[in-house]
């Protein structure tokens, strides 16, 4: 069936079986491969996307559920060729190593920062507890989110 939703700010229509995983529709049909699959059962968070502003594991979402919704993937975070501040912070502060979990982390972190621009360490850890990383031990990820610049600071760079 034809499923319409907003993807990274643009209206999108895709022909898919309703129960197809959103993850597969994004990766295989729409060729947005920044969203990763690490486990396929909602444990690792590598497939995190924002659906109407909430961080969700796209491997657990049938595509029919996003009809009419706003879906944002990692590809939609950077604007006008400029990294989202949390993406820049991951680059600057060692938040990414092998990188396979990174899209999920930056999407989840972007959601956190949208509702709490200055989270403390425990708040960051709670917000990212649904995302698994095996490389960093999380400290540099926590640091990256904590040191993400606000819009004003970003403009002053």
């Amino acid at each position, binding site marked *: 069936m034809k499923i319409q939703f907003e993807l990274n700010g643009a209206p999108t229509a895709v022909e898919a079986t309703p129960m197809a995983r959103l993850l597969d529709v994004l*990766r*295989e049909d729409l060729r*947005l*491969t*920044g*969203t*990763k*699959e*690490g*486990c*396929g*059962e909602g*444990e*690792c968070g*590598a497939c995190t996307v924002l659906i109407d502003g909430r961080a969700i594991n796209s491997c657990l979402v049938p595509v029919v559920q996003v009809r009419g919704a706003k879906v944002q*993937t*990692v*590809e939609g*975070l*950077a604007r006008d060729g400029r*990294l989202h501040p949390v*993406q*820049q912070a*991951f*680059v*600057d*502060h*060692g*938040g*990414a*190593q*092998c*990188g*396979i*979990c*990174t*899209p999920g982390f*930056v999407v989840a972190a972007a959601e956190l920062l949208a509702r709490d621009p200055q989270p*403390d*360490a*425990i708040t*960051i*850890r*709670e917000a*990212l*507890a*649904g*995302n*698994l*990383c*095996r*490389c*960093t*031990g*999380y*400290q*540099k*990820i*926590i640091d990256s989110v*904590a040191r993400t610049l606000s819009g004003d600071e970003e403009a002053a760079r």
Partner: protein
Amino acid sequence: MAGAGTTPDDPYIGRGFVRADGPAKVTGAALYVDDVRPRGCLYGATVRSPVARGRLKGLRRDPDFDWTDVVIATAADVPGENVIALMTDDQPVLAHDELRHVTEPVALVAAPTRDRALAAARHVEVLYEALEPLFDPLKAADNPIRIFGDDNIFSRLEMVHGDGLDGMAQAEAAGARLVRGSYAVGLQEQLYIEPQGMIAQPREDGGLTIFGSMQCPYYIVKALKRVLGHDRLNVVQAVTGGGFGGKEEYPSMVAAHAAVLALKTGRPIKLIYRRDEDLQATTKRHPAFMTYTTAVDPASGRILAADVDLLFDGGAYNTLSPVVLSRAILHALGPYAVPHARLNARMVATHTPPNGAFRGFGAPQVMFAAERHLDRVARAMGFDPVALRRTNLYRDGDVTPSGQRLFDVASLEVLDRALAAAEAPLPPSMVATRPGGGQAAGRRKAGRGLAIAWHGCGFTGNGEAALAGEADVSIDGHHVLIHTASTDIGQGTDSIFPAIVADVLGVDVQRVHNAPHDTADVPDSGPTVASRTAMVVGRVVEQAAHSLLDALRAEAQWPGAEDADFDTLLERRPSDAPLRVRARYEDAGAEWDPETYRGDAYPTYGWSCVVVDVEVDTDTGEVLYRRLVQATDVGKALNPVLAAGQLEGGALQGLGYATSEAVVLDDRGAMRNNRLTNYIIPTALDAPPMETILVEYPFAGGPFGAKGIGEIPHDVPAPAVAAAIEDATGAVLDRLPMTPEAVLDALEARETPAETPGAAR
């Protein structure tokens, strides 16, 4: 953060320069193997043995399944030899006679979609005659059920140091006390977040291109030459989502399977493991059973002699197990000087999935035992655990069990600096627990534990000299390319090598790049393993950069060229001819006898001290991590941000090994908890705040003094946790993992104390 530009006064090395692949990874643009879909590609899937041991009788296709677009391949379709060439030729590409472990690959299918391929694989039944399996490693040697050779022993090592057991007898006669303890560790999964995956693509010349997730492109070349029966192949690394040893040797299997299907179908084949399949089928860290007896001087606490017995379970095939055992025996006494020792080690075969490379490679197993044993000595003889370590730690001029004399030993400094940092309060910005704790607070006991590691960097003995790894540097217009087989698996090689070359040439690092790790182009720099890449290959790359300058100066026909800088030489080149230079690893050759295990076991050693603060929930047995401090000798931090990040990731993998990562096998030897729901790696909430102190005792053989750091952080978090649990509760745990159930058992056993708990401070 590092700005652009470099001069001799403002080098990249030593600064937190930004990693080259950072932007691609944070935007999702980086292409991992599953992100690539070659035109016309088919999807592969693997049919696996349902039993631990059996005689293969054939395959049965479900007659009710639609097979029209499915291709099946078996051992008969392997064009060359049916063997995964590594150390010995015992492991087949596809089983053809005897099944030796559950999940062993038996057949392959290819289909137009991934779902079709997976469904087809499920509808192929493996027919077999069941045979009695052998699971218990303690009963494997000389068991009438034969798996490997005459005795089921993959390898056996013995070392005698000083007067060996005579030294033990002499010490005992002179009044030393004997302390004996047994220690055991279980399986651990590497758990790279990206599962194994490979694409095999037919080439026009009848050969193949292999593209995928891997650490060691030339391992795959070596293996596939024999599988294919020719060498018309090239292997290209995709961006790789973690390895930790799990993508050292196993990718040769995945590549061989993709290759067999690609040759049979003539189409590109994409073979990506599901997580549950990856967990059940691929290699893990070896379980080990370890017994230590030491003679200890009751007055000084000096360890005078040691007798160590190590038994490792290799699983059904040899893989790299003999090398794992080698590293285990060489690290078995931990970072402590012992004048007399005998060490015995055996690697046995069982009908379980083969174990293989995993960060630390035998060292985390034995250093758990060594550190726990020191705590046992402290407990039994009334020593303070830290003071006991201080007494026995290696110092400059001490001699290891292989007879290697040590210099520039950082053992005491890492101990002092970790202790000092742990004494300071945790910065409020790092606190990771909410105040309060309610009812749980009363039943939680706080404790601190400490452990110390040494780790040999690079290959054992004269391995590096024998391999003679190579690296090329070339000019590409205004840019410089580095050609090596040393892959970036997250540790930052694609950023570190360019920074080394940029500093040698005095150019902006933006102009220096690692060329794609494609064996059609890069020389064999050796595998990306053994804490060797930055230290060993980094040095070769550094030499290649110097050779490039030399080559430019040699072709310059103008006065003053010998002192000119790189850009001037480049501008005034007499032609645009390609320029590519090669450097090869060279050393005088270590003094090393592989028969007796005497000599210089490693080019140098790293040193590390880990201090862990825990709270133990005495009702549930849960261990909560509150803080981890490590001080680690890295030689020279080429990039402090990347170095600390690698050390912290390794330490958390070590904490998972300590308490949560239990692999449970069913009665066929198959991993029962083969999902991320029940194989538990730490989350951001489980992980403690981590402070990392980089200690720099430079190694003259490494670039800018760097040592290998990839493995050492995994070596001793687990014994530090065990010591912390003991400090908190008095419970003694000598086996890994220390699950809540195991902690509760130890808490219960504590009620009848036979020994006095020792404080670990």
